[in-house]
């Protein structure tokens, strides 16, 4: 993914009226478009929102969504919560780690693999989210097909 530049950061801040109480929304918008928040952006946000760097840093560190390292082009999240566990998400996670040759939280080549705790698709478990789209009733065969689709859409 790309790295956000100074100008775009300012534009996003302005979109939210340069209000400090919109910090979480500003960060969410940045992550939605660029996938992560570089260190210099934290400094810039602090300045433009009239907050301390510690404030912004604290918020970035607090929320799972706010990555501080560049993710892969594709983000694969596998639900680890109870309803999906009841339908074999642990095994699916093991399988995913094996065929992608990586662990949860890692980025290898073009993929970032992350845990997620509930996608609200608990009646169609196990659930997986790939690049922001939720998939249900995912077994190993379907997981492979989803990965093929993901790479096919490059």
């Amino acid at each position: 993914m790309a790295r956000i530049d100074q100008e775009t950061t300012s534009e996003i801040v302005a979109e939210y009226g340069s209000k400090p109480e919109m910090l979480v929304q500003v960060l969410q918008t940045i992550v939605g478009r660029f996938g992560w928040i570089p260190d210099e952006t934290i400094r810039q946000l602090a300045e433009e929102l009239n907050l301390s760097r510690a404030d912004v840093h604290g918020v970035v560190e607090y929320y799972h969504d706010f990555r501080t390292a560049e993710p892969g082009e594709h983000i694969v999240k596998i639900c680890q919560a109870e309803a999906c566990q009841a339908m074999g998400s642990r095994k699916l996670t093991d399988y995913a780690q094996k065929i992608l040759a990586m662990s949860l939280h890692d980025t290898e080549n073009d993929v970032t693999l992350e845990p997620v705790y509930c996608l609200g698709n608990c009646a169609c478990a196990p659930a997986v989210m790939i690049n922001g789209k939720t998939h249900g009733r995912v077994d190993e065969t379907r997981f492979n097909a989803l990965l093929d689709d993901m790479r096919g859409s490059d």
Partner: protein
Amino acid sequence: MARTKIYVPRETAAVSVGADEVALAIAQVAKKTGTDIELIRNGSWGASWLEPLVEVEVDGARIAYANVSASDVQGLFEADLPNGGEHERRLGPTIEIPYLINQDRWTFWRCGLIDPLSIEDFELHQGFKALTKAFREGSDAVLDAVMASGLRGRGGAGFPTGIKWRTVADAPGEQKYIACNADEGDSGTFSDRILMESDPMGLIESMAIAGFAVGASKGYIYLRSEYPLTHSILSRAIATARDAGWLGDSIKDSGFDFDIELHLGAGSYVCGEETAMLESLEGKKGIVRFKPPLPAHEGLFGKPTVVNNVVTLASVANIVNMGGERYAGMGVDRSKGTLAFQLAGNIKRGGLVEKSFGITLRELIDDFGGGTASGRPIKAVQVGGPLGAYIPVEQLDTPLDYEAFVDIGAMVGHGGIVVFDDTANMAELARFAMEFCAIESCGKCTPCRIGSTRGVEVVDRMIAGDQREDNYDLLVELCDTMEDASLCAMGGMTPYPVRSVLKYFAEDFASS
């Protein structure tokens, strides 16, 4: 001849199993065959196990086809889908599906029925009727109706909504807020999501009613980021309602100003706790506040705030329309009305079942759910999310009722019901409860922040067979400390699932 209406849900569960591809295939085949259709992306009826559930309107009645995949579409057209033709996927009229007709739909009645983004369709189905009635009868009439309904907070805590609203209405101050908690993070729950995706304007109307009743001019919806499709539907619905004059200054010349701002969460479970949510809405870390002061007195930006869950709020429109007594006439004892139960996990017929309180777990799981998906015996059922107890088979006849569940050391919570079959390892699930708490703890109070990490270690030692009895005692003591001394339900209720495993499934520690 009128165009044939074909409905394909645009709702997360349906889309997660191919509804978008089905909709595309239907549009393509209709075009190719010259069939004049109107494709409507409705919400979901909540019968997730039947998704994608395609419907076609024939002579005013909707005929359902279940579990349709894109590859079925050509064959469906060959079988005369536009006229409700026979096909192996055909279920018959939607209104005859037992799973749906055996429910008591009060809050979710428009879900699946209407096009969630059509304000005309919404108004055709009583949309904004309750808000108009509220304008006519005044705020006290609304407060009285909500009080009379016995409605309690559906997010999990079960606090009486009427009392909360009255407190905010009576609180001094010019600026008050409505904060809708749409941070539905409990595993096994998706009723908020289904409502927001299938009847978003129903929520918007009820929030406006709440604002009118307590004197708040602004509402916030705090939506979890794990629901991107919900975000897209809800933001379009808010914009549509605003364009039509149902949000904004002096709504329909009533003199009442109300608007809604939609905020996204950022993946923190504890932000579903009301005070952490308020912190997050203020742009800060989602760290739990001390109570008192209650949010009803000092909530968002220090102003009196009604914090209600999506389903709580959305239940209000019909309470205003039909009267609080009518709602209170359903349910049992102090659990009045209906709850949207969610059947999830290892269950054959998973989905949403809105039913009056008093139904037993066994009735929900067997009669609606059809037992486990795997066909194996049930081992445990977790009710009320990750902080809810694991209930053994012997207790499945417990009626769904806030107090009856407290009596067995469990909680109804947000109504999520997660079924596990006999392959589940309950010791691992006890460990997971502590691990989840360690991952999600906001860190403000020590019992939760430290206790959860120590909890994982103690459970690990028990699983490893290291001084199992001593560690058992230690775990019980740790649970006591967390329960008694944590600031909020995160640390305070994580012991619930852990204790239930110790009590009913202790043998799983030995077999791990």
